[in-house]
């Protein structure tokens, strides 16, 4: 049982709190457990507590309250260098006075590994990130992407079971970042290492992770696989933070059978799926993804509520069209349609009617 628990909850935060000043909590009652081999991303705006969590896991910060466990063992009082956790830093933190090979060799040296074995491991790790030819260079002679690879190789060279990454791709340009996202995910899965990845970039989080923990205000708002996070945000913060979203404010008019009718502030009524509303008369914010808005009435079920809309702006974006509408008194209602051969291009000023499947419109808490 012990072994399986340790594997199922390889990393665990139990009721962890953190305060720097003794007045306010940066991390409030954090509970998290991740199985071995998982790639988990901590996503959130700056100041949400995600980096603090990472630092507590790495051992650079101590929890004010609660327990942090690694493989079933409390590691609260273990100093960072004994935790055996690999870490990749935001600005790589490659030691500037050492060559690339020396940087990689460093964790092996402090582990008293013999010279020939060290060299083997360093070469292997560099090859793994396609940097085999750069062992003799200084970090300052490398490009940002190359430094990133070296930092990664250094964090992996001593074969840690857990690797932490603190916004490792923040300094790279978009193209390189996408390439590296891909490489990191592959490497992590191939090596079977458990990874905790911190970022404020939702695309990164969605594309790389097994699960994403969305942080806000010192709490995990939702912990779920990327698709679930996107499709079924559990509260208005997550809905808002992940992907693009149309928001309409209203009050629950009818509720029952997994569906509810919301009367918007403009007086219109729409169908929605109650997520965290439970009774009639409750204030709610409904959220609809732009790509789930339907302009073709024939595709809606009979009796579905529809809304009148006026086209304000049409933007051609290549693969999709983005159309801004005025709906229920809101000027920033956006819909996205695929650039298909039969797709209509809505001209500004056109009056249309829009609707959606009730399941795509989620009645969430009113912030």
């Amino acid at each position, binding site marked *: 049982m012990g072994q399986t628990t340790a594997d199922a909850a390889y990393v665990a935060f139990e009721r962890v709190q953190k305060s720097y000043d003794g007045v306010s909590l940066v991390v409030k009652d954090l509970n998290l457990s991740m199985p071995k081999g998982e790639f988990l991303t901590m996503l959130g705006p700056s100041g949400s507590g995600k980096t603090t969590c990472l630092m507590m896991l790495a051992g650079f910060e101590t929890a004010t309250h609660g327990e942090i466990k690694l493989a079933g063992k409390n590691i609260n009082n273990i100093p960072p260098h004994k935790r055996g*956790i690999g870490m990749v830093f935001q600005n790589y933190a490659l030691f500037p006075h050492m060559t690339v090979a020396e940087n990689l060799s460093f*964790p092996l040296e402090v582990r008293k590994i013999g010279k020939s074995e060290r060299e083997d491991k360093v070469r292997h790790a560099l090859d793994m990130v396609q940097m085999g030819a750069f062992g003799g260079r200084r970090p300052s002679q490398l490009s940002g992407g190359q430094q990133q690879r070296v930092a990664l190789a250094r964090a992996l060279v001593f074969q840690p079971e857990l690797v932490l990454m603190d916004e490792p791709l923040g300094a790279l340009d978009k193209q390189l970042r996408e390439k590296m996202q891909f490489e990191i995910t592959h490497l992590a899965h191939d090596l079977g290492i458990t990874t905790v990845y911190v970022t404020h970039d939702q695309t990164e989080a969605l594309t790389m992770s097994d699960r994403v923990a969305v942080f806000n205000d010192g709490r995990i708002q939702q912990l779920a696989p990327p698709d679930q996070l996107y499709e079924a945000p559990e509260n208005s913060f997550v809905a808002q933070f992940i992907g693009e979203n149309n928001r309409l404010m209203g009050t629950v008019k009818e509720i029952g059978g997994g569906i509810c009718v919301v009367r918007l502030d403009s007086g219109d009524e729409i169908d929605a799926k109650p997520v965290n509303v439970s009774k009639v008369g409750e204030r709610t914010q409904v959220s609809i993804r732009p790509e789930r808005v339907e302009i073709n009435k024939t595709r809606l079920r009979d009796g579905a509520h529809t809304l009148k809309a006026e086209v304000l702006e049409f933007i051609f974006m290549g693969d999709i069209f983005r159309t801004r509408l005025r709906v229920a008194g809101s000027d920033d209602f956006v819909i996205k349609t695929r650039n298909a051969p039969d797709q209509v291009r809505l001209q500004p000023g056109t009056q249309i009617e829009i609707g959606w499947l009730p399941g795509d419109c989620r009645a969430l808490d009113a912030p």
Partner: protein
Amino acid sequence: MAGARNIQAETGPMLAADGRPLKDSLNRALRRQKLRALLLISPLLLFIMLTFVAPIADMLFRSVENQIVQETIPRTVKALEGWDPSTGAPHDEATFAALYTDLVIAEEYKAHTRLGTRLNYEFGGASSLFRGTGREVGKWPTEVYTEQFVASDPAYRDGAAWALWMADPSVRAVLPLTADAYDAWALMTVVEKDDVPAEEQPLDFVYTALYRDLAAGALPQLMPAVDVDNWDSVAIRDLFLEEDAAWGELPVWQAMKSYGGNYTAGYFLNAVDMQIGANGPEMRAEDERVYVTLFIRTMILSITITATCILLGYPVAWLMANLPARSANLLMILVLLPFWTSLLVRTSAWKVLLQQQGVINDTLVWLGLVDDANRLVLINNEAGTIIAMTHILLPFMILPLYSVMKTIPPSYLRAAKSLGATNWTAFWRVYFPQSVPGIGAGSILVFILAIGYYITPELVGGNKGVFISNRIAYHIGTSLNWGLAAALGTILLVIVLVLYWVYDRVVGIDNVKLGG
């Protein structure tokens, strides 16, 4: 277009838009930029040239300059050219006569005492020898020649006649001593007395020179013929010896000969405890050697002070670099405090603290750590110098260290620890190497400032804690031997440059940082 350029690059020089070669255009643009840069720095450059480079050049020059002997007693220096010091002091009348002429003229210009002061640096007694002899030399009975010339022909009294004779090349050719003495007298008459030589009767030394020329067999045209064979004469050498027996001894002559050139290595020899002996440079007597000891002591103490500054300054700088801004600023003020107190206040404070009846000793005795009879000697020795100088110079170590440490992100230490390094390993392998440029800059600053300090060592160093700079200050301010001071200063400068060069070779000067 790009293709066209490439083709041109292969066939000939690349041209700018206006058809000039691109390289020329670039150079022209750069030259204008350089000129503007030069203009911007020119006030400072001028200032530095005037206040820094020029004095150093002057100092270098002074350490070898020695025109005073040649200028004051040129005839003597010339007469001594053929003299060999190993044969003892000169005996020949000609040399003494040359010195006599020189001294009479020098006395008139009041230059003989300056020469005495200069030669006194080389052998004790020159000062009073020249002063005393100079005072008397005008009164020596050489008027016996004047009287005999005037008696034999009154024309010899006539300034105008003299002027006429001395203007004639043929006369000058046969009477070299006379011509030389007359010229010097004429110049002196104009410069010092504001008189016209043609209206004045020459002084005795001119007649003395004429007598010596004639006695040597010269037969000048133009001048009234005289036969000097049976004249009364005076032995000038005897006059000198009567005045002071030192004129019959070797040292003064040797000094005049050794230092007769316009330039001398004498100051430098002196600065390394050597002197010009009868057989060239030799070491000074054991009990007169002081400078080499002081140079070595200056180096050792300065290195010790630098090392102490590193040891004390490093933790403080580290603390400052890692504290929140407010506490760091407070600490910075404390570090800079020594700059804000006057040297005398600080010195008094050190004395109160360090002396044997001082606060530290009192405390130690009270604590029972030190016996009352064996109080520690913390001042008026090397310890005093090291303590006081470390205190003064510490900011010069801390500031560059701090500014370098400030640029080392804490993530390096974290990275090292996450890679498995203990605190010490992380510090020693990762943090320390990156702070070395700060140590380098601080050490250079502290060391160079230390070897030049003299006030503090003078006040708290006693006799064992003084530096070579104290001797330089002494020679500048008290003994007035500026040549020796310049030579000592030059050696110090060279030592600094050599050390700098070694430092560059060993550590690399680009490995020195004063900040990010």
